[in-house]
């Protein structure tokens, strides 16, 4: 197993009586995209700020590459670049100035800088606005500047906090593609998000955190499969089914529960639906019960979150 590029050990941050991050343990492997999923206030941003040495942990530590963030923060920061949740720009600055200075402070040589800036500004759709003050920009445009910083920098470890909030759907896909290409160029990505779909489509693994604690971490497929009866197959049959038939279906491997919403309408809760579906159709054909329609649905990461917390992400945010 390769050495993790980030190792978080008992990381804790307290603000007065509030424990924002509570003894978090997590390892991130080189070259992966790890999605840190949780509702607002779960402790995602605080974790990221400790990894970038902006905040000092109250307890525990994290290793960024070989460097302990509490002992060698200056060295740790040479490996990391962060795109913040709220754009960190002064209203008087222009996109060109912001990115040019960012590239300079990150040590990108001048012959490379201009080329890279042009490419990134075109990619995020801000080339024509590069000389305008950001105070005239919308929230989405400012957010694009924030993401552009990391694309210009191409750090070994890119930490990205909610990259697509306030960005339209076309822009989201653009940014997702850029994050993927950043990974393909060799960066490890730590992506904090509260958007389930974003975490699902982008992440190799998803770590779900709630109230500062890590609940679970695995790849999205395994997380969904980990919910007993998480997959649902809805079958509408040509005639009513007997109680005996229902019991037969219930006894099938991986089936967790069967609900008869109408006499000819079954809702089957199971795992690995794609493997069980042929068995179910074969069973009804053998019983000479015609199948009118079949609909299969997978659990979402929201279901995974609800499974571990008893709350949907929306409910967790309200509490």
């Amino acid at each position, binding site marked *: 197993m390769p050495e993790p590029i980030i190792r978080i050990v008992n990381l804790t941050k307290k603000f007065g009586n509030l424990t924002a991050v509570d003894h978090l343990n997590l390892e991130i492997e080189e070259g992966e995209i790890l999605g840190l999923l949780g509702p607002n206030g779960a402790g995602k941003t605080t974790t990221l700020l400790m990894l970038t040495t902006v905040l*000092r942990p109250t307890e525990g530590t994290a290793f960024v590459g070989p460097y302990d963030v509490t002992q060698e923060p200056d060295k740790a920061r040479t490996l990391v670049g962060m795109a913040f949740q709220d754009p*960190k720009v*002064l209203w*008087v600055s222009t996109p060109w100035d912001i990115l040019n*200075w960012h590239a300079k402070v990150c040590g990108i040589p001048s012959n490379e800088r201009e080329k890279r800036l042009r490419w990134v500004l075109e990619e995020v759709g801000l080339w024509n606005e590069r000389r305008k003050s950001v105070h005239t920009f919308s929230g989405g445009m400012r957010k694009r500047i924030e993401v552009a910083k990391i694309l210009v920098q191409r750090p070994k470890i890119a930490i990205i906090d909610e990259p697509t909030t306030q960005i339209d759907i076309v822009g989201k896909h653009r940014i997702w593609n850029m994050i993927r290409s950043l990974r393909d160029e060799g960066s490890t990505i730590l992506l904090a998000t509260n958007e389930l779909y974003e975490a699902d489509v982008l992440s190799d693994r998803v770590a779900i955190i709630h109230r500062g604690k890590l609940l679970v971490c695995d790849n999205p497929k395994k997380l969904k499969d980990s919910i007993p009866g998480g997959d649902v197959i809805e079958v509408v049959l040509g005639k009513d089914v007997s109680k005996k038939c229902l019991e037969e279906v219930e006894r099938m491997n991986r089936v967790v529960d069967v609900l008869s919403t109408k006499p000819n309408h079954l809702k089957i809760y199971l795992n690995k639906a794609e493997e069980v579906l042929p068995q179910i159709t074969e069973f009804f054909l053998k019983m000479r019960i015609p199948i009118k329609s079949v609909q299969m649905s997978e659990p979402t990461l929201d279901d995974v979150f609800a499974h571990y917390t008893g709350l949907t992400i929306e409910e967790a945010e309200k509490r």
Partner: protein
Amino acid sequence: MISLRNVWVVAERDLRTFLNYKHVLIMRALWFLAQIALFGLVVNKMLRPDVQEAVGGSYFSFYAAGIIISLLYSTSVFIGYDIYEEADHGVIEYLLSLPVSRKELVLGRSIGGGLRSFLYVSPMLMVVLYLIWSSNPQSFVSPLQLFIAFLALFLFTFGVSGFSITLAVSIKSSDKFDIFLGMINALIVRLSTTLYPLVYMPSYYASVAQFNPLTFAADLFRWGAGLESAVLTAPAIAIFGIISFFSIFTFLGIFLHERVLEGGSWQ
């Protein structure tokens, strides 16, 4: 180990940011012109010849040299407002996440804050020198004196910048900082020799004003520009005063700023 390249890159950011405050820069320059062309000229006509003689032959020259120092001071304190502005916009978190050390960051800010003010005021300093020399054509200007005066003003801007950073990181609220700095600015300019010499001040004011860094800077600049008057602070004392001010506040600003950033109390 401090990287000078990193310090310079940080300082460069403050220089560029300052240039973006176009309206502020234009307004300050207009304020300076109004002070010279209106206030300076009118008051100059009001004063008796003996007063004019006491301040080196022309109150207008004395005043022009003083007002440019007050402009140098007011633009150098601007870095403190930047620090608050950045805290409001969360830019401080961004700066802390960058691959520069905390020492490089605070040193760069202090240098940037002073340097940008000096560069901005330099053309107006030249205008003032021209006005002084054209109104006293017989005065002798030593290039060495002028060089020493400029060097001291350069240090003065770093000291003021450090002073502003010290206040900005010590006062938690931007409103309080704004009010406090407004009050300090009013007092520090009026209790100095930027507008009038020590000899015309009541003794209790003069006893304070003689230790004011603006007094040292204004009188040293007058000396460098060739204004000869007994009312000016002795150059050696002024140089010593400016070096002390620079040393205390530049390093205090750097020390406190670094401590605040490391300790996380900027939050």
